[in-house]
């Protein structure tokens, strides 16, 4: 007790000194623009000169006159939902298979995570070539005699969005896998042994042991995937730029076009504020499920 009282002030000063550079960076380049982005939606602004206050006009335009906004919102949600289901689903199956105590398990983990390290721009451009009319997929279909399935995958309104989602699932399933695998490997093997002695099949133990014990990891990874995929921009911009006919327009691309092509910064900010709001809700849930909130609560109690 005596010790803490004695050193408090010096330590407080050191804490502030050590934190200062980080706080300055974050305040100037994250918090300040964040405040601006909450204000900008209420103005008309060309990026230079005067800001004209127009109240809720931007919001009204977006909700009532901008048909692309609704398409973009729908596509962002579709991408988030199916992207998350796909990556978490496949990541779970892969982790489960690897966790069967097979040989070379670390090699598989290495291979499956590899695509995560590559830039989305590269994987996007690569998949443009895979899905090209003369690309790998159509050539593969021809090779196995299924020419009737060939398509201009990214130029077809019906297949463009699913193709983009598939690309994301292809690239990021390894990301969810490493979290789930780490979780599985921390489960006490004796639990499985005693369940097997009691006559449970391996499949049963997946539902009775693995999934319940991984609840925490599942919630974290689902929230992370939702957060990452809701802000999708790079992949869509590289692969289709929102086309054909707006079929793959997402909030990120819609915002970019409005702000940086049509130079409507105020209006672009309205779209940004919607993204911000959704991401904020996701982040609040993430803080809860990640366990950081629990740490803070415990720290506060002590």
């Amino acid at each position, binding site marked *: 007790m005596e010790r803490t009282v004695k050193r408090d002030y010096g330590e407080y000063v050191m*804490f502030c000194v*050590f*934190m200062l550079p980080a706080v300055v960076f974050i305040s100037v380049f994250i918090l300040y623009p964040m405040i601006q982005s909450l204000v900008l939606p209420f103005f008309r602004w060309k990026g230079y000169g005067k800001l004209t206050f127009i109240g809720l006009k931007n919001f009204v335009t977006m909700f009532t006159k901008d048909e692309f906004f609704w398409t973009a919102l729908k596509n962002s949600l579709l991408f988030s939902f199916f992207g998350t289901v796909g990556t978490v689903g496949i990541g779970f199956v892969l982790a489960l298979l690897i966790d069967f105590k097979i040989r070379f398990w670390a090699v598989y983990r290495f291979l499956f995570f590899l695509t995560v390290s590559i830039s989305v721009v590269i994987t996007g451009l690569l998949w443009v070539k895979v899905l090209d009319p003369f690309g790998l997929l159509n050539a593969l279909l021809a090779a196995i005699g299924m020419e009737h399935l060939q398509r201009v995958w990214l130029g077809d309104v019906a297949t463009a969005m699913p193709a983009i989602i598939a690309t994301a699932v292809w690239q990021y399933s390894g990301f969810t896998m490493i979290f789930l695998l780490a979780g599985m490997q921390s489960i006490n093997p004796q639990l499985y042994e005693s369940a097997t002695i009691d006559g449970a099949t391996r499949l049963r133990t997946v539902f009775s042991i693995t999934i319940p014990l991984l609840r925490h990891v599942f919630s*974290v990874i689902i929230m992370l995937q939702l957060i990452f995929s809701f802000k999708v921009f790079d992949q869509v911009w590289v692969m289709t730029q929102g086309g054909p006919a707006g079929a793959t327009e997402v909030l990120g691309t819609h915002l970019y076009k409005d*702000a940086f092509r049509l130079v409507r910064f105020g209006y672009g900010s309205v779209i940004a504020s919607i993204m911000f709001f959704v991401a904020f809700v996701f*982040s609040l849930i993430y803080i809860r499920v990640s*366990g950081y909130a629990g740490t803070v609560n415990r720290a506060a109690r002590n």
Partner: protein
Amino acid sequence: MRKPGIGHTIIHALLILWAILQLYPVVWLALSTLKPTADILSRIFAPPTSLYLSNYDLQLFSQRGILISVYFLNSTIVTLTTLTVLTIVGLLAGYAMAKLNGPGKNVILIALVGMLGIPVHALIIPLYYFVAQLKLLSNHWGLILPYVAFFLPFSILLLQTYFRQFPDEIMEAAKIDGGNHLQVFGRIVMPVSLGGIATVLIINFLGIWNEFLFSLVIMKNNHAKTLPVGLMSFRGPYNADWGPMLAAMFMATIPPLLFYFIFHRKIISGITAGSLKE
């Protein structure tokens, strides 16, 4: 114990199937760079028959206004400078969060976790304008400064989990021997935490090297572009020339792939540790 047998063969078969599905496009990319465009298109699955290297002719790129070596240099400068500043700032803050008592620590912790989820797009408009006001558009610093800020929350969170593992008793002993916080940090805590610091460096390297949107908006001038943005030039009129395009893509992939090959263990353990408490 579960015993190996026919089950394991099926598992291996399934895993190998996924591995092929996932890696074949990347392998195809690497091999196709060694074939002339006409060959790639006519015999798309065939491996290269001879060592055809013209796709890697950088002169040909620059004649078309695609300055691969300039983009490469820009990416390198921006990434290395960002990493240096980011690591110094992140180390200090991570240490303070883990080992020092201070005002508002809990609020800062929650804010940092919250910032992990902020979509950069939501800030791109005010930030673009801010960087323009600073007269830093198409300037390396116009990219470096926001990058440091954006990669800080994750870095601090991950670093503090490493610093937390350091026993307080040793630090106390060092302080009794007359060391101040900076000395204890530099001479005792830092050397022991080098592994953790390396992990943060490597993960941030990948994130910064691959970043796209900010670079797209801020680096307007062709001579200022980083690799991911520069590669977008291939969406234009040279889109049909597959050979050089694939070669450029492959060149841009080499640094991150190399990093992954060398450091994959650290990357995998670090990503799980920073995002998950406990």
